[in-house]
């Protein structure tokens, strides 16, 4: 399944992309993260969260959206 991944903050530098289309087999967030780390090994020891439909997802949540956000730790304010 082709999905669009948006990178934010420091992750745009680590992956050297602000967005990309990736072909993913995962049906859960956990598996999605594993596949993405295979594509981008530089993400391996990084802290990030996965959001879809503007909502942070847990590891076991199903991957349903066609657009996924990868968010590093927040540092607003």
């Amino acid at each position, binding site marked *: 399944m082709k999905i669009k991944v948006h990178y*934010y903050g420091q992750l745009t530098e680590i992956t050297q992309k602000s967005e990309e289309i990736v072909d993913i087999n995962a049906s859960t967030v956990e598996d999605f993260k594993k596949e993405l780390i295979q594509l981008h090994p530089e993400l391996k020891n990084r802290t990030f969260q996965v959001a879809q439909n*503007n909502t942070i997802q847990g590891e076991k949540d199903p991957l349903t959206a066609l657009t996924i956000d990868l968010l590093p*730790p*927040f*540092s*607003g*304010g």
Partner: protein
Amino acid sequence: MKKKGIKNIFTQGAITPAFIAQSISNHQSKTQIGAHDLFLGQVRADEIDGKKVQAIEYTAQEDMANQIGHEIREATFGKFELSCMHIHHSIGTVKAGEICFFVFVSGAHREVVFEALPYLVNEIKTKLPVFGKEVFEDSSYQWKVNQ
């Protein structure tokens, strides 16, 4: 993606004292209000390894930030008896000494605003997908980490 009733909290660049003054003025017709409490975040010129921060560049997942901001707003109104609540955050570059964050609550008496404001500021800092990049005077930078 813009939903009804969801406000845009983002301001391009620094939040000016004139903007804050206007926001205060807007409440003068609300004569049930007795107490306002305003939090302002200002960019510090922190010195790190001998280099001084000269600005912070903010980026965000704006759509998500606005939606979560809206949810925090509703939850805070449910928790505290407030008349008004306003949340503003900079996007883009804000120089050291300038204001990047402005949170404003109003109520009948001081007790409620003193309780509500720290709660609200903390929620926003913890939950909003906003990312700060601290730029030094020599144009090198580091990604900001919240305490």
